């Protein structure tokens, strides 16, 4: 039953020699081997066991940290030296990274154990994990349904307890939405809190890494390891790092919760709304105050995001040209043919769609109308939050308008984009956001979203933790086949 334990409990078990990291790792590898969720692209059995052995050695010498010997699943967007790093794309199916991402390095320094690399929407573009070259991931709560995306493999793995925790990245909701749809905890920190070095870029000004965990406490423990200034990432913040576990015991009496009117409008599934409102009531019972706030420009979050992100990705993905690494078409006739076919054959449809949108929006004559306009609206969206946070501490609302939908059910891209309505604003404003299990609708998990002011991760984590002390939604498990 090791897989049901939290990180703190696992760490204690390792320290007390209740089990070794090798045993723990093998237990997870065994569970992965029988899983049919398709949540891992690569399982690194051998590496994991050798890392576990190193960790046991370190623990035996009494040297480890709280995370030493703890297995985890790494989203396949983080570079891992000597291990395939595909970003869910045919383009990088053959790519073995020659270097480690900063996060990978940090985890290695703590002697953590990487179980494997998780499935994801290609280059993190998608909200259902259906855009993966490696096929869709199944939601452990209902295998006909999607786990959300783009960190779908990570969310499903944690929900199915085939990883104690997983890493994710969130550009427009890619940690929070799959966490919500899979009934786990996920936090996207403030932009600049976690290094982006070695994290394959989708939209550089929006991308932010964070953990997907069973609980808020686990998230705090992992964030302590992930976050911090990195001189390899110019956009990472030179800002003091708090101990995110330190204030987890604080009372939330008097906490001011803001409910944005715009997050409870038409389009929100009424059952989902019911679950959200019940959890808000719970917070009231716990002593928090609830206020209505307004984020008047949040309606423009979708068009703004779907200009900014494609513009940046159209440039970020130019390096995948078949010249130095990754997919190259057979027998290119000339340079143009090499580019054309390598990229046409190597990228999936959604990636190509976004590259084309971005290329168009940055073109001479359209730049002002699209890119610049979008930047202005982005600023307005930030201002909305700034104003709201003058009167409240945390903004709450749904993560996604619905619970997990069936694989293949959403056929057009625009409908898929519209489902990102509640998560995009936090990325556009660079704010930290979280999803925590808040209940169920038709046996499918519903996540509650918490959005905080810049650098308020501690408040978010403690608010979530206090809720999890009073509820047990986060410890509900899907039925194992």
């Amino acid at each position, binding site marked *: 039953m090791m897989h049901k334990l939290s990180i703190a409990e696992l760490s204690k078990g390792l320290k007390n020699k209740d089990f070794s990291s090798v045993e723990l790792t093998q237990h997870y590898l065994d569970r992965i081997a029988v899983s049919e969720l398709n949540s891992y692209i690569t399982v690194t059995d051998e590496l994991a066991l050798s890392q576990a052995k190193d960790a046991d050695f370190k623990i035996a010498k009494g040297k480890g940290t709280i995370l030493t010997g703890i297995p985890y699943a790494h989203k396949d967007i983080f570079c891992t030296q000597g291990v395939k790093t595909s970003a869910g794309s045919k383009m990088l199916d053959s790519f073995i990274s020659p270097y480690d*991402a900063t996060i990978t390095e940090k985890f290695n320094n703590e002697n953590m154990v990487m179980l494997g690399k998780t499935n994801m929407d290609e280059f993190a573009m998608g909200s259902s994990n259906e855009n993966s070259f490696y096929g869709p991931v199944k939601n452990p709560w209902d295998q006909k349904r999607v786990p959300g995306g783009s960190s779908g493999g990570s969310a499903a793995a944690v929900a199915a307890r085939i990883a104690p925790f997983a890493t994710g990245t969130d550009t427009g909701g890619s940690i929070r939405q799959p966490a919500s749809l899979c009934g786990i905890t996920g936090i996207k920190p403030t932009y600049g809190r976690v290094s982006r*070095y070695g994290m394959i870029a989708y939209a550089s000004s929006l991308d932010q890494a964070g953990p997907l965990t069973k609980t808020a406490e686990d998230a705090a423990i992992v964030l302590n390891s992930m976050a911090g200034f990195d001189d390899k990432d110019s956009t990472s913040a030179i800002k003091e790092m708090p101990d995110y576990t330190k204030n987890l015991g604080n009372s939330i009496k008097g906490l001011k919760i803001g409910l944005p009117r715009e997050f409870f409008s038409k389009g929100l599934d009424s059952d989902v709304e019911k679950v959200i409102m019940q959890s808000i009531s719970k917070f009231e019972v716990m002593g928090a105050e609830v206020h209505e706030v307004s984020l008047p420009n949040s309606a423009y979050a979708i068009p703004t995001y779907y200009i900014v992100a494609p513009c940046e990705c159209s440039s970020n993905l130019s390096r995948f040209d078949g010249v130095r690494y990754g997919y190259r078409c057979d027998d290119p006739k000339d340079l143009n043919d090499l580019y054309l076919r390598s990229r046409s054959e190597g990228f999936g449809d959604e990636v190509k769609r976004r590259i084309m949108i971005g290329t168009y929006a940055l073109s001479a004559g359209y730049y002002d109308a699209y890119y610049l306009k979008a930047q202005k609206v982005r600023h307005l969206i930030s201002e909305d939050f700034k104003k709201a946070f003058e009167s409240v501490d945390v903004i709450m609302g749904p993560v996604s308008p619905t619970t997990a939908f069936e694989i293949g059910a959403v056929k057009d891209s625009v409908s898929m984009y519209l489902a990102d309505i509640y998560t995009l604003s936090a990325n556009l404003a660079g704010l930290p956001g979280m999803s925590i299990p808040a209940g169920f609708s038709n046996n499918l998990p519903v996540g509650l979203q918490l959005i905080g002011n810049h650098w308020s991760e501690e408040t978010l984590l403690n608010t979530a933790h206090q809720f999890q002390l009073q509820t047990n939604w986060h410890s509900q498990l899907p039925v194992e086949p």
Partner: protein
Amino acid sequence: MAWETVIGLEIHSQLRTKSKIFSGASTSFGAKPNTQACAVDLGYPGVLPVLNKEAVNMALSFGLAINAKINQYSIFARKNYFYPDLPKGYQISQFELPIVGQGEIEIPLDDGQNKMVRITRAHLEEDAGKSIHDLYDDFTAIDLNRAGTPLLEIVSEPDMRSAKEAVAYAKKIHALVQYIGICDGNMQEGSFRCDANVSIRKKGDELGTRAELKNINSFKFLEKAINLEVERQIDILEDRGSIVQETRLYDSDKNETRSMRSKEEANDYRYFPDPDLLPVVIDDELLVQIKNSLPELPTEKKIRFIDVFGLSEYDAENLTVQKDIADYFESMIAQGADIKLSVNWVMGELSASLNKNQIEIQDSPISAIELYELITKISDNTISGKIAKDIFKSMWEGKGSVEEIIENQGLKQMTDIDALEGIIDEVINSNTLQVQQFKDGNSKLLGFFVGQVMKATNGKANPKQVNKILNDKLS
């Protein structure tokens, strides 16, 4: 009415930082292909650029040296285009808000006048790698060692009116970037490259359509390429044709320019601010610090040479064109060399030999001290100027020091008056016919006698002494 040529230059000056502009890889030239390119330079997935502060400081030095407006808030932008030696598919450059804004620089004209050329901007960017097309039959090879090398692109206004002016401007910038130590100026290695925008018009008309000449890596080629282009444009316009806006490549082997791409085929670079880099914010303190650390600039040096050494404007200009030349000259003077002789020898014999052998003065086989030693032998009458030229040649060929050469080749000027008189008597006695003619009033024959004496002494006689003795004896 005659055609007027209008030229603006874009100069790419490679900055002398130790590491690249956005990575820690080395910038040194000539290493084995792809050995000085790290994951960042290779554009690997997930890598991020980190700005090299030294490159920023160098750009600021340049801006301050040309009295430019410094943009204390500048941003990096991505210039997007596909090419195999551009690993990321975009070049990090500056578009709106370059670090250096408007400035100006004075250039010397042929007629002795000076002219101000306005500089529009100077911005930081990364260099691309190199494509090598002639190494394999079926492939193009890519060397990414140069990728990410910092460049300062210096853009002038279309203020030049002839190829000569363009060259004078380019030389001035070339000198300046070396003066302030931000560029090694090595044109062969591509550390300093020019693109020229050339158009022609009837005087007083609006600017004509321009062609951009690329890939020019010497001042000689710059002049040739522009003159060729001007001729081409005149031919077209005089045949009632029209100029197409295009980029043309200068081929120094064939001495021709040919079209690379027209405006229609030009890339849409889709510039946008690079989200991986923060805006560059320069505080006043840094500006003051850099201003104070600037060395003496060419114009200041020129004025000092005129004031302190009493040089002519022309000599002062020529000696300060390159910092290394000025330094060479000043080292000679510091040893106590005669100023006039030093100027003549540096600008004359030394420059000619350097040019002929295409050697930079810092690599000269004859050091400033050695040249000082040589001309000192002229000043103290040990040797004549003519002998000194021969000795210079021997020194250039590495045949030893001034003393050794004089000693070994027996070149010391004759100081033994008796011996000299004896030789002169011999010359007079064996040329009686000429002696008579001279005495009859053909004074031009003095030169003949001097020549005979110099020949008989192997040039070692002091010409002044010879003249004097001859005059005495023949009168």
